[in-house]
């Protein structure tokens, strides 16, 4: 914690926007897709043509309630939409259909792990709304692309319960993990499926909240941390010097690592919220809420804690395994099929992770299935292959997209565990290196390891270690 933290209380609240994973937009049937040519996923509704009316996306409503539920909110018995009125070139209607009086969720709590332990961050509300179009500034003109206009957004507003840049970054990463676990959003700040604005104030202890500054334009959790920490210092300096802070919006400049006043701040807009007359209130029935419950997966933190306990994992292993739901699912599936938990954990966090990184794919995208993992571990534990060979087999699972047994068979990598066969190899090695062999027999046990290495080499790594050890020891009279 910085010096500023010693003197001042810091209050940070977040406004997080996530793109919901739906096929169509929030209020019209246009495809909700990235990467298409500009202005092709548009229609009279999302272009704000006269006479066009909004039609609420059923899936967006479900996902909204799911997130509200997952964040421990009171879910609305009646939820309704409202018009938020302001003018901007990327707004097709110059009002945004959002929620105001009756959002899908209120008064929730999300637990996250911080340096000093797990703490709950209060959620003020969760509400549905639509995105605006995209603007690209180019010289004299601004280019407008309305493909994104009308995208379904979910806004999550927290209370100012975060205390530092580090905490905020940790919270954001936990939040990303949560929405990915639920499958409601990709939660990617650099791709644009998640955005985060922060509200920050500092004040002398016991004085409550200070003058609020809004921070925008932070495009990754890391930048959020940097921007907030910078802002805390900036504000502390002002107050230290006897000055006062202005309630304003500042932008993070990632090239200069500073926050700057937003240029040409428009006069404070009065949004004049009023109930959206085009959309009737929505009252989820029992079937709807039952559907929400079914979609509610075990949340990341709970899953991590349970897996750690159930499978006796180290904190690092638990962290790694629960980071992505597909990894956690893979792990548990493999273990439940009979593999040893610690072994699976070790393989996943080292060799498998390395291969995924090398191929630049995720575990879910890789050719390694939990069945294949299980069978690989089986081959080791049944003595058919050594650990060393197993690594090579794993590599080939990735490159050949084949089953471990098939690979071992094809490569002829079955371990040699027949004592008679090993005897031949051991005898040959001891004969070649008789001096070393004699040294060991005379008491220089350290060189035994080297002899073992030679046996491995001579057998192309296929000598089954335990049997080879026995044979060697016998041959050396140990």
């Amino acid at each position: 914690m910085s010096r500023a933290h010693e003197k001042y209380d810091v209050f940070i609240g977040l406004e997080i926007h996530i793109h919901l994973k739906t096929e169509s937009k929030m209020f019209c049937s246009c495809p909700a897709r990235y990467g298409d040519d500009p202005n092709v996923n548009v229609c009279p509704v999302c272009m704000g043509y006269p006479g066009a009316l909004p039609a609420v996306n059923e899936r967006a409503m479900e996902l909204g309630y799911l997130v509200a539920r997952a964040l421990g909110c009171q879910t609305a018995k009646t939820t309704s939409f409202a018009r938020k009125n302001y003018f901007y070139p990327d707004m097709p209607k110059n009002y945004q259909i959002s929620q105001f009086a009756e959002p899908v969720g209120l008064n929730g709590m999300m637990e996250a792990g911080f340096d000093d332990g797990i703490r709950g961050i209060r959620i003020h509300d969760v509400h549905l709304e639509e995105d605006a179009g995209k603007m690209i500034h180019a010289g004299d003109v601004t280019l407008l692309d309305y493909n994104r206009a009308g995208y379904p957004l979910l806004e999550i507003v927290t209370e100012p319960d975060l205390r530092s840049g580090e905490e905020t970054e940790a919270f954001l990463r936990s939040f990303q993990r949560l929405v990915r676990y639920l499958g409601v959003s990709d939660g990617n700040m650099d791709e644009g499926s998640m955005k985060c604005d922060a509200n920050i104030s500092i004040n002398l202890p016991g004085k409550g909240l200070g003058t609020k500054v809004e921070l925008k334009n932070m495009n990754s959790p890391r930048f959020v941390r940097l921007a907030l920490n910078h802002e805390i210092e900036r504000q502390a300096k002002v107050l230290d010097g006897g000055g006062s802070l202005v309630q304003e919006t500042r932008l993070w400049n990632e090239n200069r690592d500073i926050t700057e006043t937003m240029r040409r701040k428009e006069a404070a807009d009065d949004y004049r919220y009023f109930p959206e007359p085009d959309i009737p209130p929505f009252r989820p029935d029992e079937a709807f809420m039952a559907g929400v419950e079914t979609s509610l997966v075990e949340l990341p933190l709970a899953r991590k804690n349970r897996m750690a306990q159930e499978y006796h994992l180290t904190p690092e292993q638990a962290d790694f395994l629960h980071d992505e739901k597909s990894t956690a699912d893979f792990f548990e599936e493999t273990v439940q099929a009979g593999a040893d938990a610690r072994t699976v954990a070790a393989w996943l966090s080292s060799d498998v992770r390395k291969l995924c990184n090398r191929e630049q794919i995720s575990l879910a995208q890789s050719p390694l299935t939990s069945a294949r993992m299980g069978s690989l571990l089986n081959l080791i534990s049944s003595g058919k292959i050594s650990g060393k060979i197993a690594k090579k087999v794993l590599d080939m699972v990735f490159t050949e997209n084949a089953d471990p047994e098939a690979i071992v068979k094809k490569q002829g990598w079955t371990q040699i565990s027949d004592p008679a066969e090993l005897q031949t190899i051991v005898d040959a090695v001891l004969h070649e290196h008789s001096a070393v062999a004699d040294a060991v027999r005379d008491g220089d046990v350290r060189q035994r390891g080297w002899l073992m290495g030679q046996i491995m080499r001579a057998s192309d790594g296929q000598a089954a270690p335990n049997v080879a050890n026995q044979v060697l020891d016998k041959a050396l009279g140990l």
Partner: protein
Amino acid sequence: MVPSQDEWSLTAELARLELDEGEAVRLASEAERMKELFLTMSQANVEGLEPTTHAFAGDNRVRPDSAVSFDNTDRFLDAAPEAEDEFILIPNVL
């Protein structure tokens, strides 16, 4: 300057309505007249009444989430006052 004209100027700005001198005076006075009419509603006894936010409280209306592309989206670009290469153009925002 009529005090109430400032209120109407601010209101006009919120609505992105640029009013010239004559318009501002004329519209402000007509608006004031209507405002007086609106104020007569304060006499109504509406204690305990819920506001009518929607004409009829219908059943839940939702649309199944399937994507349908609008036919011939070129016409949106054709209809724009300024467009070039698949984008709609305006003077630079910044």
